[in-house]
């Protein structure tokens, strides 16, 4: 089992959702985060105060998958998130020790495999 973390542009989030859906990855969570990588900063001005915005809005996907789904998930995140410009984000794949589905108590592979009911 792996936890796949994908940090993408907010404007690409819908494409990522579509790509994950096509890859049949059904379970994930997403959150809004701020961060910075190598992209150029935006400069904004408010009533004469000029500021350099060091943090960019990003969307962070977290997908816990069984080993067979890792490549599909990474592929979907890349496909949906890529624009080719600096600032498209990163994907991190980290090992996952243990997972539990709270409703049933199913653990590990059983917990990260979606069930229809």
């Amino acid at each position, binding site marked *: 089992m792996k936890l796949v973390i994908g940090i993408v*542009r907010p*404007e690409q989030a*819908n494409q990522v959702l579509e790509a994950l859906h096509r890859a049949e990855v059904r379970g994930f969570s997403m959150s809004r985060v*701020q961060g*910075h*990588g*190598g*992209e*150029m*900063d*935006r*400069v*904004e*001005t*408010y009533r004469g*105060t*000029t*500021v*350099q*915005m*060091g*943090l960019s809005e990003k969307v962070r996907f977290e997908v816990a998958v069984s080993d067979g789904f890792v490549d599909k998930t990474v592929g979907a995140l890349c496909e949906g998130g890529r*624009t080719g*410009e*600096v600032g498209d984000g990163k994907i991190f794949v980290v090992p996952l020790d243990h997972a539990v589905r709270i409703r049933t108590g199913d653990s590990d592979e059983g917990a990260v495999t979606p069930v229809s009911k």
Partner: protein
Amino acid sequence: MSGVDTGDTAWMLIATALVLLMTPALGLFYAGLVRSKNTLNTFMMSIAAIAVATVTWAAVGYSLAFDGDGALIGGLGNAFLSGVDFAPREGTTIPELVFFAFQATFCIITTALISGAVVERMRFGPFLVFSALWSVLVYAVLAHWAFGGGWLISGGTLDFAGGVPVEMASGFSALAAALVVGARKDYGRQALLPHNAVYVLLGAGLLWFGWFGFNGGSGFSTGEGSVLAFTNTLLCPAATLVVWFALDLVRGRKVTAIGAATAIIVGCVLITPAGGYVSPGWAMLLGALGAIPSYGIIVWRTRTRVDETLDVLAAHGTAGLIGILFIGFFAQETWNGVSDGLFYGNAEQLLDQVFAVLAAPAYAFVMTFILLKVIGAVMPLRATDKEEAMGMDINQHGEEAYVTGEGAILLLPDDHDKVAVPVADPG
């Protein structure tokens, strides 16, 4: 000054301020209906109309609309406010300066209304150019036809507060603008939802408040026509709201907030042309019946490829058209002292109203279409797809509506040459 009535003038000064408030209110209404990344740009389009249309109105617009009684266009006798002073405006008891200011606020809000068709993708610069040209070439001309002595008003068409130059003009211009500028890149592919329904409701409420000046001031006095229009501005939108609730309940089993805000606008538009001409009872019927076509067009339009984003055609064009026609049926001389409609034995009034609903939409649509094609040939109308994805607030104005300030570094005056700085140079 002889001929000036102090009571009438006092009311018209207040009415002018009320109508001016409608444009920021429209900005708030529109801003709530777009995505959060386009909040400021959408609001700024309304502010831009205040800036640009006021100047063009003072320069030539007012004169073209209200100087003389040429069939198609007024003269240039009042250009740059020449001769606009404390003397009463002909046919009224208020100084022409007040009359000018009151009419200016109409030109402003009408210009701002069209922005609803092009928000979230049209660049700000071309919108400024468009506002300047449209306020003169379309608004001033139609205001002359309907208010200023042009062929519609002299032919007998009744339009109390602007069904022709404000509502039908903005609605059908919005359709043309949406067709020329084109749909947002994600239209029809993603759900593009209103980001703040509270703004939408508050904006609609402030618009309704301002509309009492808009309709109640269009008699240019505190006389019977103004009083009738004022009260009809309360009754008609309330009836629209009730019917809109019912339509929402039938269609989705729930009454929606955005629907209610839309209904307020539709109701106010319906009564705009008819306010001073129909009885309070007929005004309520107008509000009730008039809800149905606008509701239907909003439901239908979202299924098409036409991204007339904030439904200016449904809310203003359609409702304005219905209001103008309604006068032809239900105007009552015992209430308005001017003319009866078909229902009271005067079929000719209906014919006069039909001329207006044929001519005004055609002129507005064709002129706006040509105007935007010409502007588009000189400068790109749209932001690039990338800018559109990032949001118009950042790339058009360099500001955000909901900035957190986290990670913002203050740039001192010496740093102004650093326009864009890589935080961590990847190379």
